[in-house]
């Protein structure tokens, strides 16, 4: 990874903090999630290896960018998606969680869900799949995993 294109969210805040401390990675904070995929597309065309990290609610805002500048151009891009509202009981009042997986199915975006450290071996597979298929691949970071991580936060929303 060369660039981390992100609008921070509660579920991936621990990743943001860890990557901020990594000098080989350039952070590219955006003002709205819809900018993230186009910025990543430009970086990739210039020979870089960006990833995107945004929340599920922001992914919905970014729908047209996902359509045109990821799926439409065949962009091999891993997108970390904060799975706000997700829990293992499958019972959530947060519609941001309720719609995420149907949304990804609708766009035909393959994905993994990270619920614990046991799931982390999915991450390199996501990069392999994106590169092999020339398509975006989502890694959804569950709220409960964020709460369990050492620097995770329990705050809601963006």
């Amino acid at each position, binding site marked *: 990874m060369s*660039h981390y294109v992100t609008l921070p969210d509660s579920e991936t805040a621990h990743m943001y903090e860890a990557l901020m401390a990594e000098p080989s990675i350039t952070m590219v904070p955006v*003002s709205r999630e819809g900018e993230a995929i186009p910025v990543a597309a430009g970086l990739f065309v210039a020979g870089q290896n960006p990833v995107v990290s945004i929340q599920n609610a922001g992914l919905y805002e970014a729908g047209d960018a996902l359509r045109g500048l990821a799926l*439409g*151009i065949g962009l091999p891009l891993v997108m970390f998606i904060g799975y706000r509202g997700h829990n293992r009981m499958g019972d959530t009042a947060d519609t941001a969680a309720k719609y995420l997986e149907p949304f990804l199915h609708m766009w035909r975006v393959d994905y993994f869900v990270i619920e614990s450290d046991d799931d982390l071996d999915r991450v390199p597979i996501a990069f392999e799949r994106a590169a092999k298929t020339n398509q975006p691949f989502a890694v959804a970071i569950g709220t409960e995993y964020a709460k369990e991580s050492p620097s995770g936060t329990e705050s809601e929303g963006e």
Partner: protein
Amino acid sequence: MITYADACRVLNESRGEAVAVTTMTQTKYWNQISKEPDLDIGIANGMSKASSVALGLALGDPERSVLCLDADGSLLMNFGSLATIAGMAPKNLYHFVFNNGIYSVTGGQPLPTAGVEYAKAAEACGYASTHRFEDVESLDSALPEILRSPGPVLIEIIVKGEPQAEGVDQTWESNAKMPLQLRALRKRLTGNDDWGPGGPFI
């Protein structure tokens, strides 16, 4: 007031080997005169996102200038990108905004504004410098020096509106143009022809 044809001609004369990211009516005129098609990207199927793609290119290849030929209606849809670009402060990004006050490709409907001054907006966001031109002679004489100055720079160009009746070209062939252009540009910038087919068009 400047015509699209004159503005694109003047920009093309000073372009050198800069990458050019265009959108909407600018793409139509730019494609007629560009002598470096492997360095051109006409953003289609990516509504309003020319400025964000240009930012990614500028950050990814900081030694090469990137020209973004943006539209006022497009920028309004992606207005936060002004703040994002200023935040990242790429010294090689030159952001041209063609201001005609209308949605050209849908027939000329007015923008929902009281008249935005994009150069002032970019200055307030923190661009390194901003300029505004209403005649082609002033643009022509100032442009070489502007393109030698550190970015990000926003250059607002007041253009004569050209409402289009034909709408947007949506064929399999036209929609394949952008993915093919992006691959050609990656090959030109990196020297590697390593991005295979993907997506619905190629």
